[in-house]
């Protein structure tokens, strides 16, 4: 078993507010783009340091530069503008809605610079992340494509190009964050067609579902061409934990609730891990928070990572 994170890390805390101050100064015209970029790099270095220090086996870069899951792509892609703020699923967190105005194209290098920077900082194994095509397509406002299917597959082609770019830069695992798949299980066939296009990029993928129960899709998910499937087994009423053997891939088990401040006990998590291990070999189980930790205050996120790693050790799957 390995431990990992998904999504964004809390960028600031009550104690660590350099980035927040820099963004305010940038808004007021007191800090230029280069100056802000330097602070963003330092904050990324800080986030990666914290994730490494927590003892996780596989980390990401904390997505410090991402305003939201869709923003890096909506900013970089031709054919895409940025529209009004909208609520991100059932969170009191907002995203800027992409507005598709023409054919989406990308050179596929949107995330390369940041990945290379993070790789130079991270001590352990680093993975990359992209927005899932169905998530982007269902949250965007579309003035160009004729149908959800056309839009999703066009987005998939653009994301596949980004994954190729990441692969060329050395990425060996890419999270595909796809909450829309479990929010709209009726679109699973379309999501699968989109993921098949991503898989052609030739980089192992981890399909991360969160916010909603994956129960109705577990059998269908087994056929997705990905190396890993992330399943949130905590946030809502779900029995996915008892049905993990429906899956054929490595399961990234979301066992630490990243949307509630109550810190789980080690024994509570060990119980969940043992349930998983009764169905799957340890090599096929990774342990993670249910979603990005940015939905929590920083101090709680740190405590949750600590108990996650401790529980993994206690369950016997990770070297102490």
């Amino acid at each position, binding site marked *: 078993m390995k431990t990992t994170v998904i999504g964004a890390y809390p960028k600031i805390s*009550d104690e660590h507010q350099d980035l*927040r101050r820099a963004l305010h100064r940038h808004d007021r015209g007191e800090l230029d783009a280069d100056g802000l970029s330097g602070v963003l790099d330092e904050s990324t270095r800080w986030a990666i340091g914290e994730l490494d220090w927590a003892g996780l086996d596989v980390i990401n870069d904390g997505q410090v530069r991402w305003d939201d899951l869709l923003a890096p792509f909506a900013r970089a892609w031709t054919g895409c503008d940025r529209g009004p703020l909208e609520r991100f699923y059932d969170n*009191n967190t907002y995203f800027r809605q992409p507005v598709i105005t023409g054919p989406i194209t990308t050179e596929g290098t949107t995330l390369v610079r940041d990945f290379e920077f993070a790789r130079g900082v991270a001590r352990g194994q680093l993975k990359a992340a992209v927005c899932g095509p169905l998530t982007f397509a269902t949250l965007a406002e579309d003035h160009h494509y004729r149908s959800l299917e056309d839009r999703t597959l066009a987005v998939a082609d653009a994301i596949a190009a980004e994954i190729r770019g990441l692969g060329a830069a050395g990425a060996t695992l890419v999270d595909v964050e796809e909450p829309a798949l479990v929010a709209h299980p009726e679109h699973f066939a379309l999501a699968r067609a989109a993921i098949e296009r991503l898989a052609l990029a030739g980089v192992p993928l981890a399909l991360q579902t969160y916010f909603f129960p994956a129960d109705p899709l577990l059998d269908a998910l087994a056929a997705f061409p990905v190396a890993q499937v992330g399943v949130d087994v905590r946030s809502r009423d779900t029995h996915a934990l008892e049905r993990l053997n429906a899956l054929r891939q490595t399961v990234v088990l979301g066992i630490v609730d990243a949307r509630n401040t109550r810190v789980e006990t080690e024994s509570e998590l060990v119980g969940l891990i043992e349930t998983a291990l009764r169905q799957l070999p340890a090599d096929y189980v990774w342990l993670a928070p249910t979603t990005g930790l940015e*939905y929590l205050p920083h101090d709680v996120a740190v405590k949750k990572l600590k108990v996650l790693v401790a529980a993994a050790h206690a369950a016997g799957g990770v070297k102490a």
Partner: protein
Amino acid sequence: MSDQVLLTTTVGSFGKPEYLQKARNASARGKIGESELNELERKATEEWIRRQERLDIDILVDGEMYRGDMVAYFAERLDGFRIGGLVRSYGNRYYHKPIIASKVGRPKPMTVDWFRYTQSLTDRPVKGMLTGPYTMLDWSYNEAYKTRRDAALALAEVVRQEAEDLQAAGARYIRIDEPAIHARPEEIDIAIEAMGVVTQNLDAKTISHICYGDFAAIYPKVLELPVDQLDLAMANYGYRWLELFNKDPFTKELAIGIVDVHSHETETVATAAEGIRKGLRHVSKERLLPHPDCGLKTRSVEESEEKCRVVVEATKVVRKELAREATPA
């Protein structure tokens, strides 16, 4: 109050004057005391009452000069809550998200003194303004209650106490906002049940403001929310929610948002008036109340005032049209 139909109002918050923003920052750093801050909050509240009277708004608000976040204000005053660390809302906007850490209770009224003070400044009606139990729950972390329904009903009880105290203090209009009501459409029965607890003993006109989310996902079920009036953002959504009323007629009073609050620019009077006309296709003039889409706290004082001016001017344009139509040739 003016004669009438198409009563104008606002959602609740206005831009804070610079002197108050500075005082709030100084207070947060411990540089000025509570009484000094309170004096400035009262001054700013009176200024906003005078502005609303000058603008000729019919149903007034206190402008929330003494509040920051709409959940944290109450969480800081209720037993059972503690205030958590900073959490990002978007971009560079962070807030201290409350944590329901133990059984909630209301040690004393939280908004009644402000209501009394504000109402004493004017002959026009002033709204009592509360955050609804479902939104209080959804925008907090719940560590204390086993289920979200349990937490919502416990919060409903403290909101009920506050609402009844507002009514006893003379409030004729009481707003119980539920902007998070569509966060989980499958939980709307919980929101309806909790609101029923809050409004069960109220004779005052009850209002609930709903914004920023998929209203279509909870319509027409939301018509079962036990309040007299729904207060909806419409301009920001291009009035698309009105189309829902073709299939399932709207059955409550409608406070209709006719100017967007998230842009520095304000719609023209003509555009805003057209918004009112769209509303009149679904709701009678006696039951339609024009206002800005949402609270104006993110706008400056001047921008807030301009958006209110456009609402009132647009309303007067449409009232004249209605009067002409009603006059026999």
